[in-house]
């Protein structure tokens, strides 16, 4: 009997220790606000890659005081990608500061969908146009299966966007165009300058060349019309038919800013989604 009791107590102690250990680990993570900023449920990265990416995300989040989170998942459990991303953010205690500032990128492998959810100050830092510009760059890499590259680029873009937002003018329709514009690249500028220069020079020398030519046929005989001899006797103007063509107006992108929605927990999120 003694032996049995011993075993029982030992079992309970071990069980309690294990339980406490798990709780402690969780509590530790929760208290410091740090569930891992990379949750790779879809298992797209190797452990080494995960470790380095988490370091990077931690570094950016710490510097910018805004959580940058990447979550990959196998299944969405019947939610939309946006709902899943919002809930993941809300129920896992992400977000830094009073406003719980943070941005979360969710990649769902089964549906091959992605969603970005922003919260707090990140809503304004990542405008609709800004998110479009970001995703235009890294989503193609997701499509190609280049996950590590895509996530690294997402992290770097977030860093860049948050730095820009800190100036008080986040990337938006009005400053994105000029920033992204190929016109800003020095090579393009030189090429364009040379192109227009040559074109203008060609026009000028063509005009100079044109002065050498002065012999031209006269199609009409207007100089020989007897003055006052033109009389119109009959004139009709009949309407025949009409054609109407319509073209869709280009959508007005000038408004800018960020659109928001409310998640199941009642908090306000910004974001965007799509498939890859």
């Amino acid at each position: 009997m003694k032996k049995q009791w011993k075993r029982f107590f030992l079992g309970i102690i071990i069980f309690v220790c294990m339980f406490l250990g798990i709780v402690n680990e969780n509590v530790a993570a929760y208290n410091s606000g740090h569930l891992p900023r990379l949750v790779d449920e879809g298992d797209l990265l190797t452990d080494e890659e995960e470790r380095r990416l988490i370091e990077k995300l931690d570094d950016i989040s710490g510097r910018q005081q805004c959580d940058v989170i990447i979550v990959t998942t196998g299944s969405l459990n019947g939610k939309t990608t946006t709902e899943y991303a919002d809930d993941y953010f809300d129920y896992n205690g992400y977000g830094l500061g009073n406003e719980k500032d943070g941005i979360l990128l969710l990649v769902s492998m089964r549906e091959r969908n992605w969603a970005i959810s922003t919260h707090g100050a990140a809503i304004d830092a990542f405008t609709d146009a800004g998110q479009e510009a970001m995703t235009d760059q890294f989503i193609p890499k997701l499509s190609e299966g280049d996950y590590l590259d895509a996530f690294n680029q997402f992290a770097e873009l977030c860093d860049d966007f948050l730095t820009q937002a800190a100036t008080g003018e986040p990337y938006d329709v009005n400053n994105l165009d000029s920033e992204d514009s190929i016109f800003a690249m020095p090579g393009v500028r030189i090429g364009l300058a040379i192109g227009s220069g040559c074109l203008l020079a060609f026009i000028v020398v063509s005009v100079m060349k044109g002065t050498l030519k002065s012999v031209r046929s006269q199609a009409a005989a207007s100089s020989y019309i007897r003055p006052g001899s033109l009389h119109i006797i009959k004139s009709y103007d009949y309407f025949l038919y009409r054609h109407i063509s319509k073209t869709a107006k280009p959508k007005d992108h000038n408004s800018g800013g960020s659109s928001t929605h409310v998640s199941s927990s009642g908090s306000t999120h910004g974001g965007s989604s799509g498939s890859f």
Partner: protein
Amino acid sequence: MAKLLEYKCPSCGGALKFDSSVQKMKCPYCGTEFEMEALKNYDDILNQEQPDDMKWETQAGSEWKTGETDNMIIYTCKSCGGEIVGDQNLGATSCPFCGNPVVMMGQFSGDLRPDYVIPFKLDKQAAKDGLVKHLKGKRLLPKQFKSQNRINEIKGVYVPFWLFDADATGKVRYKATRVRAWSDEDYNYTETSYFSVYREGEIGFEKIPVDGSSKIADDLMESIEPFYFEDAVDFQTAYLAGYLADRYDVTVNQSIERANERIKHSTEENFAATVQGYSSVITESSSIQLSNGNAKYALYPVWMLSTTWNGKNYTFAMNGQTGKFVGDLPLDKGAYWRWFFSLSVIFSIIFYAIFWIAF
């Protein structure tokens, strides 16, 4: 009983059918709808069309009087075969068409006597000045061309012209469009309305000149137009003294076609000027009927210089009445590329500076 008519679609040419749902004629091919009234009017105009009738009385020129041509000598160019007429005292000269020395001489005979002549109003000095001015400021002209020019060899030549007078009745049909554009929230609309426009009227032409010499390019002579007939006088051989006269070798009948072209074009153009309020006006058909058409033979004064440069012949002409100077000039290709490259560099730098400041 109503006649069964087949209307053709003015838009695409297909046969139209009546569409009872819209109570209009509709083209089954292009989908365009037409009011019955519009089609009827359009058809009436089409039925009135007739071909051009451009006939001429061509009693141009007259016979020479006895003894009138005694002093006149024909100079024939050995090089180009050009024939010019001059008086006996003119002496050795060079061909105004190709610049070669004229050697053969012969007694003038045949040809018609001109009806009119416009005597030279501008002298040789004016012609030389005209040439100098013509060559001035042309940066792509080869420099040697200027210096080598045989400016003294500029010659006064009476050029034979056939002059055409006529009254024209024109019936011209135009297709005109009017464009209206508007937009709502989602779309931009462009409405193009098509009109059939008809103009019928009269117009008179006086003394349209057509070059009667095949040795002198027609476009060169048309380039120094207009000649003003007010200065013309009845022909007298005395006016030829000191000048050359070209012989006509294109008959009046061969010249009619060119006169008709210009009359037709001018009529369409002048009638079109009365078609207003449209975005575009295109001539669809025109029919010209001429009446009182007659031709005359006249000599018009032209200062001419022919010169050769790098194996190519360049001819200059100045209107001896108005002083208008023309003549195509050779291009200095080296200068052309030098200018192009230096301007390209300058403009490129300017553009780059502008881009730098603006963006």
